[in-house]
């Protein structure tokens, strides 16, 4: 919360960020990691397992992916404060919870994009090409 998000960046900083990616994103990521570290033992274990799983989905535009991790940190902080058992947070099928969860973020959109691409490829293979060349409808 220290730097103003709209403050113009110095040229040196601009060049640096071409190489490193936005520094704000890195700062937010460190803050998220620190929040997870502060969680009580089993909440932390669960949050880290979830983080590892989400990383497998790969791309997602990073500011939006960071929103996702912030929201997850909040879920676990809230759960720990209320004493909600881990099983009640995740349910019997943790994968189903994650699938519902990622749909709101760019990580989820990335998965949806690949599903749409796959569906489009099958449409074309079936001779029912109704989708434009750029992969969008109409």
């Amino acid at each position: 919360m220290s730097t103003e998000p709209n403050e113009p960046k110095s040229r040196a900083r601009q060049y640096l960020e071409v190489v490193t990616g936005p520094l704000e994103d890195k700062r937010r990521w460190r803050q998220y990691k620190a929040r997870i570290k502060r969680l009580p033992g089993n909440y932390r274990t669960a949050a880290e397992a979830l983080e590892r799983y989400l990383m497998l989905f790969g791309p997602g535009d990073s500011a939006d992916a960071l929103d996702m991790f912030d929201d997850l940190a909040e879920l676990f902080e809230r759960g720990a404060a209320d004493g909600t058992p881990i099983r009640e947070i995740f349910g019997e099928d943790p994968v189903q919870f994650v699938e519902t969860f990622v749909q709101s973020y760019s990580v989820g959109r990335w998965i949806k994009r690949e599903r749409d691409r796959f569906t489009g490829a099958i449409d074309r293979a079936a001779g029912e090409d109704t989708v434009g060349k750029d992969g969008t409808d109409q």
Partner: protein
Amino acid sequence: MGKQLTEMLKGVLEGIVLAILSVRPAYGYEITAWLRDQGFSDIAEGTVYALLVRIERRGLVDVEKIPSEKGPPRKVYSLNAQGHEHLDEFWETWSFLAERLGQLREGGKQP
């Protein structure tokens, strides 16, 4: 809660959450607790939270942060005009589905 109920619930849970919020504003934990009381005993707090995040990002609810003694502030969700519209659509779809399934069930009972 059986596997079949879990599967069926997947498609309608968003509508259920909107319906709950149309009665009065609530936070995630309250909604999950209410669902569990109503017999949806396997409902995951995370799943309800995921739906709340989604409907918030789609602009169907207004959010107010209420400080709590422990942990982060509680986010209290209330249905806005767009949310009410979406809920009306949900109930229309539900009526259609319930009516057709009812017909199918009655048809199956005939000799």
